[in-house]
């Protein structure tokens, strides 16, 4: 089966995801990450049971721009809420079937105007928060490429420890400096254990 796929060009023969090695302590991972990066590697990642801040600097991972996505979608929520409350209270009649605005038939309740920012504030606030929270939630998974069923890092014998108590350093194979043997030796020399060339 795999040979057929290889011939069809759908499966690269012995494609390699990268070299992975394990550390016991977060600080060791950070130190090793700094040294690997100093060697000139750029396609680095780590797998760890909880976030360690110095790892981002050590591996050159840029700050998340999720905040901007949330701000844009949150403001969309603000606009949507104001539009909703203005249209349903004072908007033009029959924009679409079922979308009857009450502009031509204003209901005076408690002597209040058909639209005003003061009474629109609670719903506007709530919808801004709701839209922003959805943006943060779905944005998080979209930026991370999740959910996904399979990832090559699962082929690493220690990957299940990365959600428990081990700290894994990854040098990915598409790094221009990557050389399976040399990279593996480098990780070993930095004190990594269970260093493996992981298939992708």
């Amino acid at each position, binding site marked *: 089966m795999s040979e057929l796929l290889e011939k069809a060009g759908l499966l690269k023969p012995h494609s390699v995801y990268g070299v992975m090695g394990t550390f016991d302590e977060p600080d060791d991972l950070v130190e090793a990450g700094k040294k690997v990066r100093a060697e000139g590697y750029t396609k680095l990642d780590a797998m*760890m*049971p909880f976030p360690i801040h110095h790892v981002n600097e050590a591996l050159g991972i840029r700050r998340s721009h999720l905040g901007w996505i949330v701000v844009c979608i949150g403001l969309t929520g603000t606009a949507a809420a104001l539009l909703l409350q203005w249209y349903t209270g004072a908007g033009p009649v029959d924009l679409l079937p079922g979308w*009857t605005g009450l502009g031509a038939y204003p209901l005076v309740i408690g002597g209040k105007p058909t639209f005003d920012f003061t009474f629109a504030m609670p719903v506007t*606030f*709530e919808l801004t928060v709701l839209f922003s929270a959805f943006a943060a939630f779905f944005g998080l998974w979209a930026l991370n490429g*999740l959910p996904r*069923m399979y990832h090559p890092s699962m082929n690493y014998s220690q990957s299940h420890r990365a959600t428990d108590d081990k700290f894994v350093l990854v040098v990915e194979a598409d790094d221009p400096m990557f050389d399976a043997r040399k990279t593996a030796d480098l990780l070993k020399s930095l004190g990594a254990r269970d260093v493996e060339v992981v298939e992708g």
Partner: protein
Amino acid sequence: MADLAIQRQDAMNELQPPLVLGEHTTYHDISKQVSEIVEAPVYKTPLKWYIAVAITGGITLMMVAMFTYLVATGIGVWGNNRPVGWAWDITNFVFWIGIGHAGTLISAILFLFRQRWRTAINRSAEAMTIFAVMCAGLFPLFHTGRPWRAYWLFPIPNTDLNMWQNFRSPLIWDVFAVSTYFTVSALFWFVGLVPDLATLRDRAWAAGHKAKQYIFGSLSLGWRGSARHWQHYEMAYLILAGLSTPLVLSVHTIVSFDFATSVLPGWHTTIFPPYFVAGAIFSGFACVLTLLVIARWVCNLENIITIKHLENMNKIILATGTIVGYAYATEFFIAWYSGNLYERFAFVNRAFGPYWWAYWTMITCNVISPQFFWVKRFRTSVPLMFVLSLVVNVGMWFERFVIIVTSLHRDFLPSSWGYFQPTWVDICTFIGTIGFFLFLFLLFARFLPMIAMAEVKHVLHTQHDMEAHGGRAVNP
């Protein structure tokens, strides 16, 4: 020299006790201890869990029966009638919403204030929030009398009705506030759960449990702990915490608008929003305390949920309880100082009228009982804090009852004055929601990780770091 170092360490522990107990606790110990509760095979589940599930499940069925009876018969099966049109249903609604507030406070506000002790309790407190809001939502839903028309509350374009919601009404604000609150709490909770579900998935894989691997694998969305993922994750967590903080304050503010924007003496007061929020946090912390005292005892989690955590919660109960007491006093002062006869009558009637017993139960439970927590010995006594947490919750239920019923039962027109008495359906419905709440919590405690493992490991890491450098930083 060594003696000096030990003395110094002892002194530091005295000043700032460690958040995770046990000298040689490793990250793996945390995974193991928390996961094993979830992973235990069915036959190893303690018998007391089954008994508790059977009882609370039975009470939940009673709640279902009560709502069925109400829908089949009519809203008249409750004791609500003129002049008391809002009674136990809205009391219970505000009570449950208030309980939920502690979960968001712990998960969001204490996160923004970098209170690291929250990590041991935030997961269960957030679960409690979600379950409490579910219980709360049932009451206004069934109070509408026609719950199958509930979609009329939402602005859905329609041709059959050709009408829209009245956005000038605080009741519609409430719909938006409560549904947003429920949604955001659930999203926040799930985001927190994902790394821990991945831990459970990988442990199931290592143990060769196919079914568990598939279940936790699907739920954890393929989380693998990548540093890039954590980067976005921490940002999302911070944003959700930042959003939940004003949200939680807004929810009870808007609930209080249901009363404050009316023209009824006893309801029409500007102090309501802050007073309601403080009361909500007060009752919510008491409820978290009740549940955690039981959970840490049943599941042997004393090393993760330490006395320090419980003591901190007691301090918050003391602070918010005192704020609530201050609000009661201010209300009375303003009733006198405003010179408004109706306002003054409403408050004197509250304390000395036909419902005097409810008022003084409220004062005793909410203002007097938390004052015990000024004393450290009482703050750190588990049996005492358990009893007081129950007392506080009784008190906070009475607070809502007092506000709603005493303000309504003396109408502007003396000929319509009345006295509200609950029916058996009122009582059974409320007990039913308590059973439903506990039932959901028991399922959660058995099938999902009750402690946020990834966050506790982070705290443990910081703690190791500081011990290695011979001291504790104030704000690491």
